[in-house]
């Protein structure tokens, strides 16, 4: 059944996004979760992925144009399926209702019996599919999601205790983008939910004459994975319900017929795609599977579905030659937050000539100060951390060295008046950099409070896209792990520099000419050498370590 590809929500504040580039062509087969096009909003590029497997039937969106969340970008489905006419242009007529239906019925001779059903359903197919097929994607429990930072949030919102409502909201707002929250699709599917009455026999028929097959959720899921139109499957469960066994049976039949048909399967030949996929399933069944889906199209798909270890069923002919070997690894989708992080890292690594300076600083006084400050803290939540102090001092040092508080974008160096301090925060499945705005104006306690609030927000998945905007400098702290001294942090583009904080160690060091033991902290500053010279960076570190040496004075506003 045909289904829509709609514009997902990439950020909390996003309303529209611009389609940058199509990665698939009409007629091409698209795997579930495969990227179909790239869209951009607020300087973030995002992959738009398909919620299900199918042929790209019609591109609706045009490159360079803006589309609102939920707007249809494309239709996918089985080859030859009818899709709604295009908004503009004459080609729409080709896909008009009855013609599509008849085509689909007629082109699959083995299933003449289903022609009636095909006709009856074809007109409404796309509409129903918009609801039901789209919904299937959302209900999927794997956090595939669509690309982009906030889609990632929706994904792990579901892992927090009790906040099912939030996750539902997130899934809903992601425009049915398969956000990974295991919530039933009712509220989230973009299509209209047709009012329906029970009809005798195996289906529903709504007021508009559209029919719906009664099938178990498991059967529907399997059919969708296989690209099988479930309305063609004869249900043998109670009351004619289509169950898993019926879909499997159907898949075997189709596979058998495809195997006997030379070339059966090029994506453009109606029914072939389905046959090919089904044949793949039959083959896959023979090699029952641990998990990963292999991309392919048309007859090649035969190799697909659940590649994995053999479990001893009969191997169907089709596709068996190209069965992948069993693999002893877990496949993790490189999508969502992971992909966004990866993109940023690669971009910085490739485009920016980076230099890293390393230095140790004596944190003896800083630790004393912290102890004094915390002595009368009402509870743990109000305590000042070493990181809070370092952030405060970094902000103060940046005020003294404004060139470091800069971004390099659109061909110009932008030096900022205010320090918007990014705080790299590790998450279970990635990394995020919430920003403390105007850090130089805030006192230590305000910075501490805000840092804790942002950290908690990040870890509970409630950070918004807006919380990550407009950073001018980033601090990344690995000190807490106790296993890192120096490292070479990668710049968070378009920022000019990033400060890496390592562990504090008791170190033998000269104190007034005698060997003494002092707590020393390892600092690593990476900067963009295109716009910052070594001397400037060295000066910055001199000021910062000076502040760290004598934090009392620095916090009282003493200048270097």
């Amino acid at each position, binding site marked *: 059944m045909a289904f829509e590809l709609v514009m997902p929500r990439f950020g909390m504040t996003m309303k529209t996004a611009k389609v940058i580039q199509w990665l698939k062509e009409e007629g091409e087969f698209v795997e579930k979760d495969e990227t179909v096009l790239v869209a951009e909003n607020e300087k973030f590029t995002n992959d738009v992925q398909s919620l299900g497997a199918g042929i790209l039937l019609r591109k609706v969106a045009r490159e360079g144009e803006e589309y609102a969340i939920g707007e249809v970008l494309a239709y996918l489905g089985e080859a030859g399926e009818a899709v709604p006419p295009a908004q503009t242009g004459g080609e729409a007529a080709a896909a008009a209702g009855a013609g599509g239906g008849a085509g689909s019925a007629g082109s699959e001779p083995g299933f003449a019996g289903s022609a009636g059903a095909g006709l009856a359903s074809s007109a409404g197919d796309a509409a129903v599919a918009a609801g039901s097929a789209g919904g299937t994607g959302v209900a999927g*429990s794997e956090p595939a999601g669509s690309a982009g930072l906030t889609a990632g949030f929706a994904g792990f919102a*579901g*892992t*927090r*205790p*009790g906040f*099912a409502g939030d*996750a539902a909201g997130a899934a809903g707002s992601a425009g049915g983008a398969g956000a990974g*929250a*295991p919530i039933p699709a009712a509220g989230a599917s973009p299509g209209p939910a047709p009012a329906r009455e029970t009809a005798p026999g195996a289906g529903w028929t709504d007021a508009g004459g559209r029919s719906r097959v009664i099938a178990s959720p498991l059967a529907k899921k399997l059919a969708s994975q296989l690209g099988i139109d479930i309305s063609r499957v004869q249900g043998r469960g109670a009351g004619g319900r289509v169950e898993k066994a019926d879909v499997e049976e159907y898949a075997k039949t189709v596979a058998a017929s495809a195997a006997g048909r030379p070339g059966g399967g090029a994506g453009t030949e109606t029914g072939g795609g389905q046959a090919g996929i089904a044949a793949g399933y039959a083959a896959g069944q023979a090699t029952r599977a641990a998990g990963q889906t292999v991309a392919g199209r048309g007859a090649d798909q035969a190799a697909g579905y659940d590649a994995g270890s053999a479990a001893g069923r009969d191997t169907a002919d089709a596709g068996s030659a190209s069965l992948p070997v069993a693999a002893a690894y877990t496949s993790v989708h490189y999508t969502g937050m992971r992909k966004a992080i990866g993109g940023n890292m690669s971009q910085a690594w490739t485009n920016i000539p980076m230099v890293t300076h390393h230095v140790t600083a004596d944190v003896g006084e800083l630790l004393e100060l912290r102890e004094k400050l915390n002595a009368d803290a*009402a*509870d743990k*939540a*109000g305590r000042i951390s070493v990181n809070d102090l370092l952030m405060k001092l970094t902000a103060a040092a940046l005020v003294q060295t404004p060139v470091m508080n800069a971004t390099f974008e659109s061909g110009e160096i932008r030096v900022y008046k205010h320090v918007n301090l990014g705080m790299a925060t590790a998450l279970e499945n990635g990394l995020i950099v919430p920003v403390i705005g105007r850090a130089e104006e805030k006192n230590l306690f305000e910075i501490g*409070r805000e840092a804790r*609030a942002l950290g*908690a927000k990040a870890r*509970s998945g409630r950070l918004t896209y807006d919380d990550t905007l407009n950073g001018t400098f980033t601090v990344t702290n690995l000190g807490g792990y106790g296993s890192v001294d120096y490292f070479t942090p990668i710049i968070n583009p378009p920022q000019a520099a990033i400060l890496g904080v390592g562990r504090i160690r008791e170190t033998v060091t000269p104190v007034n000419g005698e060997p003494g033991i002092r707590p020393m902290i390892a600092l690593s500053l990476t900067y963009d050498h295109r716009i910052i010279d070594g001397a400037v960076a060295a000066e910055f570190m001199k000021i910062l370590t000076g502040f760290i040496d004598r934090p009392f004075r620095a916090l009282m506003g003493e200048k270097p």
Partner: protein
Amino acid sequence: MEHSKEVLLEIYRTMTRIRAFEEKGAELARTGKMHGTLHLYSGEEAIAAGVCSCLRETDRITSTHRGHGHCIAKGADVKRMMAEIFGKSTGYSKGKGGSMHIADISKGIIGANGIVGAGMPIAVGVAFAQKYQNEDNVTVAFFGDGATNRGTFHESVNLAAILNLPVVFVCENNHYGMSTAFAYHSKNKTVSQRAQAYDIPGVRVDGNDPVAVREAASEAIIRARAGEGPTLVECVTWRHHGHFLGDAGLYKSPEDEKYWRGHDPIPVFEKKLLEEGIAGQAEIEAVQAETNAEITEAVRFAEESSYPESSVIFEDLYEEIPADFFMR
């Protein structure tokens, strides 16, 4: 019974601290600076201050929905109390309990309670534990006249009596159970006479006189500590505000209101301290200034504290968050 100057001044200090806390709360709520329900204790200060002046830190109390006074008198920190009422993370319950659920277990305050009459069974259990563990500590259950018609009153007094538990039942008879007058809701003319039904001592004192309250409570507490079982102490008093802040108390007769306002425990006790030469005007004023400053500081602390993170919702519910709280 001898009452040293220190003890009397401390009672006075406690009473003024409670009054300052309650009136500040009323002001903040009325001006919209604080949200939530408040059941104010103003007018009843002599009871909490008098009873708790006889208690050790290791003794325990259970309290009521009108519990600020009991908590303050038993030593709770007014800053954390105020923060709790403000719904802040620094409050006693991290902002999860509010006015009706303030407790400080370290001070022996097992908690205010939003259910009328619910503190008494808990107090019986605490007293049971004290006896079970051979402590010589006692538990005081504070409750109002309205609670005496709940089954828990009967069940608790009876069980404490038959098990001879070290518990003192202190009834604050302020004449109204919500809007319903004591004269209507009780055929008994006094609460204390109900003690006879359980064959335990019952006494009735002027709940606006902290010395009278202290004397009666002291006797009951000594009995309890000595293993002689529970006592029912009825303290007759008057609440200045309605049942809750916002209840205008139109059911109170103007004559009664006038009479009791004339017997406001704080000025009456102040006069006594001055007349009997226990304290001078300067000392009285110093105490008032100090307690007012404490409450001002408490408000500042509460206002400056942060609101709790939503993650506290799942804290303290179970020892660990059960696995089934997480979606698949």
